[in-house]
């Protein structure tokens, strides 16, 4: 294999391809990038067996071929060299990288050992706009569980509704739901319901490209393949049954209040400092014209911060894990937030002012007194 390419192009791709490398895998081949030169481009792939990522850059291919290269070393080097143009060339079991003034030699592993990312892409199921993905999925993905031993909760559910799509994520303590997400789907192969790993969505959001994203689903391989320009992201579908989220969405409320998201964000941040040692418990006291946010640690101290608010209904108190509040407040960008609750033991409902399509639930923490 002999290819010549622009360093900047490669650098831009490696920055996200790197996410799929598992540097500490027991399986050495997985700490490598797979390189393939053919038809005027160099394709780089990485996988940790959970997800797979691959992308290509235009290149002058003198001789086609495949090889692997230790990912971390290669990534660090490409990030540091100033050469504008580099040439990659296989020499026996080594890969040689040369520029005007530099010359490096990498140890490689047999390319056959690298797993194939997918057998077939499967049917095209939908087309997604990047900015829409950023806007809608960002509000939802953070609610998914990081614990992969509860497969259903580690995913984001995408379900077809009468109008557009609905996306939901929950880790059993909180839940995010967004309706009316506009996917373009083909009628004959359109999706009804998909459970995608939250990690796959996060990686998708981190790909720094602006093209539309095509989603292919292969039932046979139980895989979802996202294609954005020349970049491909592969993840498996989760087969577990999703919990019945509809039944836990409260239908009424005793108290409703509205406040400024930024102001609340700051208040919770401040209180979180005092809540660190008491399981992050942050208390909200809903008064007529304000919400008093407070936290205390018996051995450290306590603090209260007032946030301006307009409350209707009875005055109420509720306590949450401060981390969940911060996650919600930092993953939304709207200015005004509406909060509804009924009793300190029922899930609190956060909505965005003037937007019926989104809601976020957090399970309160029982506190005495």
């Amino acid at each position: 294999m002999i290819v010549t390419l622009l360093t900047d192009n490669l650098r831009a791709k490696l920055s996200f391809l790197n996410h799929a490398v598992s540097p500490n895998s027991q399986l050495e081949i997985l700490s490598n990038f797979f390189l393939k030169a053919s038809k005027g481009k160099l394709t780089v792939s990485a996988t940790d067996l959970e997800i797979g990522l691959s992308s290509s850059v235009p290149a002058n291919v003198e001789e086609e071929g495949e090889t692997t290269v230790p990912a971390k070393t290669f990534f660090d080097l490409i990030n540091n060299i100033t050469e504008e143009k580099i040439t990659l060339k296989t020499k026996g079991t080594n890969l040689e990288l040369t520029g005007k003034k530099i010359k490096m030699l990498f140890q490689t592993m047999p390319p056959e050992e690298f797993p194939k990312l997918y057998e077939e892409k499967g049917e095209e199921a939908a087309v997604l706009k990047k900015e829409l993905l950023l806007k809608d999925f960002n509000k939802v993905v953070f609610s998914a569980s990081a614990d992969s031993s509860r497969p259903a909760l580690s995913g984001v559910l995408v379900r077809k509704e009468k109008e557009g799509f609905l996306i939901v994520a929950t880790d059993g303590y909180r839940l995010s739901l967004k309706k009316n997400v506009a996917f373009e789907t083909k009628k004959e192969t359109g999706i009804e319901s998909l459970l995608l790993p939250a990690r796959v969505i996060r990686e998708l959001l981190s790909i720094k490209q602006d093209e539309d994203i095509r989603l292919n689903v292969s039932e046979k391989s139980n895989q979802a393949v996202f294609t954005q320009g020349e970049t491909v992201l592969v993840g498996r579908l989760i087969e577990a049954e999703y919990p019945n989220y509809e039944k836990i969405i409260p239908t009424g409320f005793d108290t409703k209040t509205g406040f400024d998201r930024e102001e609340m964000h700051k208040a919770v941040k401040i209180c979180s400092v005092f809540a660190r040692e008491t399981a992050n418990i942050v208390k909200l006291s809903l008064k007529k014209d304000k919400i008093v946010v407070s936290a205390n640690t018996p051995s450290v101290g306590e603090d209260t911060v007032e946030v301006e608010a307009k409350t209707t209904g009875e005055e109420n108190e509720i306590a949450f894990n401060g981390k969940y509040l911060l996650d919600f407040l930092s993953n939304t960008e709207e200015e005004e937030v509406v909060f509804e609750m009924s009793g300190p033991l029922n899930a609190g409902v956060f909505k965005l002012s003037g937007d019926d399509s989104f809601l976020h639930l957090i399970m309160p923490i029982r506190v005495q007194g």
Partner: protein
Amino acid sequence: MDKNKEVWDEILGEIELEVSRANFLTLFKRTALLSSQDGVLTIAAPSIMIIDLLQRRFFDIIKKSVDKHVGEGTEIIFVPKTSPAEELRASGPLFETSEKTEAIVGHLPRVRPDFTFANLAVSSTNQLAYVSATTVAKKPGVTYNPLFIYGPTGVGKTHLMQAIANEVYQKNADRKIIYITSEEFTNEVVDAIRTNSTAQMKRRFRNTDLLIIDDIQFVAGKEKVQEELFHTFNILVDNGSQIVLSSDRPPAEIKKVEKRLMSRFSGGLTVDIEAPDFELRTAILLIKAKKYGFNLSMEVAKTIAEKEQDARSLEGALLRIMTEAEAKGVLIDSSLAQTVLEGKSAKKTYHPDDIINNVCAYYKIKPTQIKSQKRDASLVRARQIAMYVLKKDLDLTYVEIGNMLGGRDHTTVMHGVEKVEKMIETNGLGQEILGIKNYDSGKLADY
């Protein structure tokens, strides 16, 4: 299903001997045999990438073993599927409470709605008190009047009394129920005298169906309060209303209480609650964990119950462990419970050599290798993990750890510990470390 697992375990056992440990853990460990019929073996593996490697690189080994165990010429098919064992877990509190909360229709002031008989753990130490309380709740004012419960702090007196209130209220929401501590009762009496509204206060207390006063021993030495209590008492008993009292000592030992009131206290049934025994503490933990939506295993509950003697500190210990598990993103098991609880008390329970041996056994290297100057990638990783565990579990100094691992500089150790911390955050190495801690170091004998 079980038959399949048996067959597959046998096959895996044989494969384990043939392939490297790395390959076995990453590729084979999460496979399962889905079905075996008509000479076709269907094997589940989590992803297409894994299937690709299994098919291209290990097919001969798998085939050989399958032929031996299932029969020659068996066809092998791989399908992408999570193995069934990985599925089916609780969905968390958000999904459990919705039905529970519907059941509670409003609740009494000052009474916690979750303090019910249903989630009270009963054992020999509180059996008698429990039985009398349920009897009283069934027929208030009829059997034992007053019911006097005493026992040391943190044994569940308040829970039992509030459970009576909740039970009576559940059955008939129109009943007038007052739950009050003796301090609050004192305040009300004093307030009433000050604001000249004693008549109103009297009417409130003398018109109830169930009066519960917690920590009655605090009325000691307060004459006016005792007098008020005495009259209230008489009227309520005459009306057939139930009275329940609690104290930290038996009535006879409460000092500075008028004789006539004392005799009223012990006029009904007096029962005591002892400090909870080990079994009861375990049961309490399981109940509390359920309340927080955690599926606590029996094993972990026992570990905590052994460490914490006082009933009230059980909940604290449980909360700490849950927070820790959440923060580290790991599952709750007894070794985590150990670590958290020991972090509070004495830390040094393991010998450093045990930890080094465990790490070595886990990664199949020799202790001399981990202490050597060699810097192979696999050795370095094991060494850094050893550093991390020694630092976090035993809180040894960096210099001590360096000396133990072949005379390394303390900055090397600091770097190692930091590196592992980072890996735990980014790669879920935490699970692996827990695995190391649990690893049976007896396997070292093979080496």
